């Protein structure tokens, strides 16, 4: 057993010391951070540019509608011709000229913006909104409708979804949050299994092709070597995962303090944040309440334990299969034929996750989260929505049983495969190896 320890140690250390691992460890969180930092930066900076806009309204429909905002100053130049105004823009007195041409009969519905630079989206949108609102009001008046009535008709529905349990307890659910959380976790599991399963396969293949395998198996049992590698790589995966969480946290906190945004509890981070960025400058009581109830709607204990269990077991199941594949291929192009049957269930799991997330309690979801090859991904999609404990238990037991069976199969194939060179293999032949 001491030897397995040595193997795990080597597999772990050589990988963790690799430049690619270090780069991925730091690049990953930066990429994640970029996803939420860049929109914030854009939102913050986009608003900071101030624009002076000369308004040449020859239709005289918009006398008072263009009011100044923090970043936009409107100056009426109704008596000056548009050509002169354009010159003023060229000279730099104004940033933008807004020209609303005269119309004979109708309410104007078009306008032109002149600028030396690209007109920012928010300026364009603001002007469009102002004009649209005013024109709508005018049209309503023209057809004899009081605009106030319309205002009263507009209704926003607040639909709360309450999930009841057997004991009569009620809990509000937030489908969007659960949806996003489930998908993020499923993608993480999928990504890690693919990435680190691939590393196991690559490692086995390297040992075989560099021929060191014969030296090693004259010191340790092939099974010890295989399990040592699988476990060593799993520790690498965990290290990377923990580092990502820590670094993402550090970047997040660092950025937040630097920019001075007060943050909601870390629970909502990354998921609900994007929509709320504009509103988070000062958090009102309602938002806090909202976030607290979202947090309460999800059983985080179950999510975290579930994630660790399904991630580890899913990885172990696939990693042993990848190890077996690494042992039977002679060159990298060969591996396609054998990796496909292994990756297909994983991809099916990922694709079905996209449907299952819309019906997490449906039949498809139930079955896919029980079948061991898809369960790590599909169950992770379901857990944030709440899954009965017995289902999780059955799924985990099935997964463990399959893992043990698969390890037995993989060990048989591995033992023969690592010492087999230059032979084209068929599935029929692999099947024979199981009987050795």
């Amino acid at each position, binding site marked *: 057993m001491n*030897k397995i320890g*040595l*193997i795990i140690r*080597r597999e772990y250390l*050589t990988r963790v010391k690799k430049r690619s691992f270090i780069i991925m460890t730091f690049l990953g969180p930066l990429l994640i951070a970029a996803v939420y930092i860049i929109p914030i930066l854009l939102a913050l900076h986009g608003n900071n540019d101030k624009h002076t806009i000369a308004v040449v309204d020859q239709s005289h429909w918009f006398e008072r509608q263009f009011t100044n905002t923090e970043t936009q100053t409107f100056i009426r130049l109704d008596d000056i011709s548009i050509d002169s105004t354009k010159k003023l823009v060229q000279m730099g007195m104004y940033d933008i000229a807004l020209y609303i041409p005269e119309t004979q009969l109708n309410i104007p519905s078009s306008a032109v913006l002149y600028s030396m630079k690209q007109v920012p989206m928010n300026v364009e949108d603001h002007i469009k909104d102002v004009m649209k609102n005013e024109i709508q009001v005018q049209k309503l008046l023209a057809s004899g409708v009081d605009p106030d009535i319309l205002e009263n008709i507009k209704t926003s529905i607040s639909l709360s979804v309450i999930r009841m349990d057997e004991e009569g307890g009620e809990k509000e659910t937030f489908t969007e949050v659960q949806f996003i959380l489930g998908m993020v976790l499923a993608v993480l599991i999928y990504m890690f299994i693919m990435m680190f399963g691939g590393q196991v396969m690559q490692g086995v293949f*390297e*040992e075989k092709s*560099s*021929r*060191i*395998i*014969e*030296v*090693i*198996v*004259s*010191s*340790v*049992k092939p099974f010890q070597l295989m399990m040592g590698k699988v476990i060593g790589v799993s520790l690498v995966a965990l290290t990377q995962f923990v580092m990502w969480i820590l670094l993402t946290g550090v970047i997040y906190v660092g950025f937040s303090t630097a920019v001075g945004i007060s943050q909601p509890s870390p629970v909502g981070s990354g998921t609900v944040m994007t929509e709320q960025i504009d509103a988070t400058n000062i958090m009102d009581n309602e938002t806090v309440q909202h976030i607290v109830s979202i947090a309460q709607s999800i059983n985080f204990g179950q999510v975290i334990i579930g994630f660790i269990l399904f991630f580890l077991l899913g990885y172990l199941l696939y990693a042993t299969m990848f190890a077996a594949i690494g042992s039977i291929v002679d060159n990298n192009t060969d591996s396609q034929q054998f990796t496909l049957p292994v990756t297909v269930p994983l991809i099916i799991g990922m694709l079905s996750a996209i449907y299952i997330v819309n019906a997490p309690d449906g039949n498809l979801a139930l079955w896919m989260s029980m079948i061991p090859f898809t369960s790590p991904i599909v169950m992770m999609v379901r857990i944030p929505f709440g899954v009965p404990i017995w289902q999780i238990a059955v799924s985990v037991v099935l997964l463990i049983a399959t893992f043990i069976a698969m390890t037995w199969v993989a060990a048989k194939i591995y033992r023969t495969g690592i*010492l087999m060179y230059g032979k084209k293999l068929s599935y029929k*032949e692999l099947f*024979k190896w199981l009987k050795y």
Partner: protein
Amino acid sequence: MKIEVKNVTKRYADQLALNNVSLQVPEQSIYGLLGPNGAGKTTLIRILNQITGPDTGQVLIDGEPLRPQHIERIGYLPEERGLYKKMKVGEQAVYLAQLKGISKSEAEKRLKVWFEKFQITGWWNKTVEELSKGMQQKVQFITTVIHEPDILIFDEPFSGFDPINANLLKESILELREKGATILLSTHNMSSVEELCDSISLINKGEKILEGKVADIRRQHRTSTHEITVSADNRQPIMALTDDFNLKIENGELADTLKITFVGDSPKELLTRIMDFGTLVSYQEILPSMNDIFIEEVQSKNAQP
């Protein structure tokens, strides 16, 4: 340690790799395991290393059946060499020693000695891929013997070595035997068999066809061929001897010498006759080389239906 292979048979899906093979490898000797490609040598070696097991028969080490604990007493240099290419030489040697049950500090101490002996001290912190092929072979050899095993199995140890390093290796192998190791040497290099091996066995198509001490085998295969070199001014009388004896006469290496090859049981009479006509320069009985014996034995076996 003494190795006994008893009636070992190993069958792969479509072929018989070893057919009832028995061997006796005496303690503290160098034992040559010979045979054409595909004869079953590697299979036998893998059985000894417990990489694979025999279908029937057994292997005894000092009289007791092969157990997992024996692995740490065996050092194995496979024909296909390999090291972790991206790993540092020293680190790798320590790791491989640890897998054989040596502590880290002990491994480092012993490695220092071997690295000095093989003059590769400066390479400790280089990765394997930076090393030349010969250098890698040295490292590989060191990792094979580092745990001071009682049994050493070398499969083609000399391939890839220049003559100087091959000599260094030969000396090291002889030294290891002096220190008590039992050495199994599998090679196609017959001159090194003659130089190093105490006894050999020859395997062909999964069956042992010859076993014994090298000296005995060569003596058994003698063809009563004698080679005589003589220096004579007048060659005529010597040439005339072909009438009485079964002789072949050629010019010798030196200008005034003749090389006489004689096949017969007793060269005594011939020698006295020759000495009447010239000066005897050398006389020796020609023992067949291991190379000849190898070819002869294998071909005669293969010729059988």
